[in-house]
């Protein structure tokens, strides 16, 4: 079948005696549950899916190419647009790859500021995931509850860097601004109310029978399939693989922090089903709260940014770093030719791999389950295409 066309491929099944026609459906790029502009060409036999071919590229903005024209410092705001739901991680990835190229040491306070900002952003991103996933399952109330909490994180991050979505907070060598006065207390206050709010959220929806029934044993992905399709982050951990870049290839100050890596255990169905992908993220939010409390207690005094020349010319060579983004293992690779502009930048994101498994994982599901599967993979459209 071709992606662009809509020829209906008629298949006759002779064995059952019932003749059914497969229907080709165009899901997206404008569809309420393809978050952003994703497109799936769906072949369905009534309600049952036969195929869901992802068609990516609707949000391709050549972000990697832009870096070759705007220089190292100038590229930072563009990284916000790679994954606008979790922009801090993209900021951090770019800053880290540049620091590795030039061999810059980030001050300790700067590292702590980064981790605080990133973990707040992780909670915000997972809240958005939970909210939209539940909305896709058909309940609207938890959506608003999750967004209420997310707003408070947005307020905190706004105090930190002046922006609520595209933060542009980190710089090569550190962060742009120190924590504002009272930020630690406000964050602690937020955490004190967020943890009970998360319990309330679980009461409201996570333990709801209809919700569990909708997700249990739907589209289970085994650990081997997850690895071979390059699933990363929470999607991989939901399949039972205990792998987290923060723990297994530590960067920044994560080695000093105590946190668990929650994995899916198939508590309501099969390991790696939609519910596992959901619950892993809920538990990660709790872990992020732990990390945040430790960071706020331990943050040292000192400068937040190293001395970095305004005309940043890293020596020729290449560097690659990995960041545990809200959507998993995010690779940043940069080649420098010794000039003010990167020679080549490449970003490898989690959503791209997640898109590729949709076709295989969705076979034999219902259309409603496809929606749950896409939502549970937490695909963010600009991160797929960049």
């Amino acid at each position, binding site marked *: 079948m071709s992606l662009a066309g809509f020829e209906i491929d008629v298949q006759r099944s002779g064995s059952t005696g019932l003749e059914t026609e497969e229907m080709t459906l165009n899901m997206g790029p404008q569809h309420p549950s393809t978050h952003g502009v994703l497109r799936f060409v769906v072949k369905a036999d009534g309600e049952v899916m036969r195929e869901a071919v992802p068609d990516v590229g609707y949000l391709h903005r050549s972000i990697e190419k832009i870096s070759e024209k705007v220089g190292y410092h100038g590229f930072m705001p563009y990284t916000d647009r790679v994954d606008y739901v979790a922009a801090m991680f993209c900021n951090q990835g770019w800053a880290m790859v540049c620091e590795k190229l030039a061999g810059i040491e980030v001050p300790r306070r700067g590292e702590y500021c980064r981790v605080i900002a990133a973990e707040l952003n992780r909670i915000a991103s997972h809240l958005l995931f939970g909210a939209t996933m*539940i909305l896709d399952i058909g309940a*609207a109330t938890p959506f608003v509850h999750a967004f209420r909490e997310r707003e408070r994180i947005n307020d905190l991050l706004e105090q930190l860097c002046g922006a609520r979505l595209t933060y542009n907070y980190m710089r090569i060598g550190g962060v742009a601004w120190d924590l504002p006065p009272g930020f630690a207390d406000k964050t602690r206050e937020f955490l004190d109310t967020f943890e009970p709010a998360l319990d309330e959220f679980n009461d409201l929806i996570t333990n709801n029978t209809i919700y569990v029934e909708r997700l249990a044993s739907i589209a289970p992905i085994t650990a081997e399939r997850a690895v071979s399709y390059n699933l990363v982050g929470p999607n991989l951990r939901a399949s039972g693989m205990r792998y987290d870049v923060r723990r297994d290839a530590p960067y920044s100050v994560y080695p000093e922090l105590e946190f668990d890596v929650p994995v899916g255990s198939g508590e309501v169905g099969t390991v790696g089903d939609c519910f596992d992908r959901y619950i892993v993220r809920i538990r990660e939010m709790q872990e992020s709260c732990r990390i945040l409390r430790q960071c706020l207690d331990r943050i040292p005094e000192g400068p937040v940014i190293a001395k970095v020349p305004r005309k940043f010319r890293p020596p020729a060579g290449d560097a690659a770093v990995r960041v545990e983004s809200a959507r998993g293992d995010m690779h940043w690779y940069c080649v420098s030719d010794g000039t003010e502009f990167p020679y080549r930048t490449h970003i490898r994101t989690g959503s791209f791999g997640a898109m590729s498994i949709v076709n295989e994982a969705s076979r034999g599901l219902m259309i409603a389950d496809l929606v749950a599967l896409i939502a549970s993979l937490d695909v963010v459209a600009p991160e797929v295409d960049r």
Partner: protein
Amino acid sequence: MQEFLDSLIAQGYFGSLPHTLVYAAGMLVFGLVVVFGFVLIVAGLTTWVERRVWARLQGRVGPNRVGPQGLLQWLADGVKCIMKEDVVPAAADARLFKLAPYVVVVGFLLAFVVVPFGSRPIIADLNVGILYLTAVTSLVVVGILIAGWASNNKWSMIGGIRAAAQIVSYEIPTSLSIMPIVLLTGTLSMQGIIAQQGWAPQDWFIFHNPFTFVAFFILYTSALAEGNRTPFDLPEAESELVAGFVTEYTGVRYLMFFLVEWGNLYVIGAIVTTLFLGGWQIPPITDNAVLRILLEFLTFFVKAYFWALVAMWVRGTLPRVRVDQLMAICWKYLTPIAFVNLLGTAVWITVWPQGNQVARYLMTLLGLALIVLFFRRVRFHLQRARIRERGQLSLNPLV
């Protein structure tokens, strides 16, 4: 209604006009009064009520700009929808596409012929009342199926077919839950059914015996499914089918579908109130005929609208079931239980033809216990929320 016209004819108001003509004209006038004076206003206000209730469930404010507390929001929305361009997709079957909303609205409005407003006001107290009601409400599914097919949109078609499968399936538990009441009363007439109940809860059919108690909940659940309400709103499941069978509709035709959806909430409430909750029965407190009619109307309306509010609350709470789960709920659980109810009621009235007073009081106590448990639960959650919000919890419904 007929008695009223008969008395007018007897007083010589219509001269030598044939009686049939007078009846027809009277029916038309009363029908129009009901449609414009009651149905449209109730359906319209329900949109506002639902949005406000929903908003309060979600910690939002909801529409509060048009009129006091946003009370006239539905008028503004209606006017907006009427002003919108009426788009008929080029590839749609134009005639059927235009016809579908009317079929749906007609099926919905016909139900009001037998919905009582009090002991006297009813458009026509048909002797096949409740059977007629189940028959005409099924007309809605024809309209939805036409809408889904004529839109020439695959999402619409899936929505239409889902609606057909869902409504036709849930007709069965609905009808089977109505049957116990018909067995008890020996009549299909709405007024006849209400007349055999009393104003006190123990005289309501819901507490008549354990089987009717269960039948009430089955009827309400399957009525929600027939009205395409969450958690059974699959035909217009926004996240899956864009908007289901209404995807291609705009303006006033779109409005018609939603008029039906919101109006149906009241019809659902009216059906369960008539069958199970004593209808318009009030205690004998006044001899003033006008006051009595008013009180009866209010009693019926409050009871019926309460169940509309419950439907809104359910919508704000539950996620949507999947299509196979929907069918499993209907065929594996509701239909067999409804059959058992029917047989159980039949046995019950064979054993106690006049009903069992002890069982009635016991069932009423059970109902009370459930309500008490419910309020304890609400109190528990309110207290917990108070602790979390540090006493900042706002319970004022008017924001």
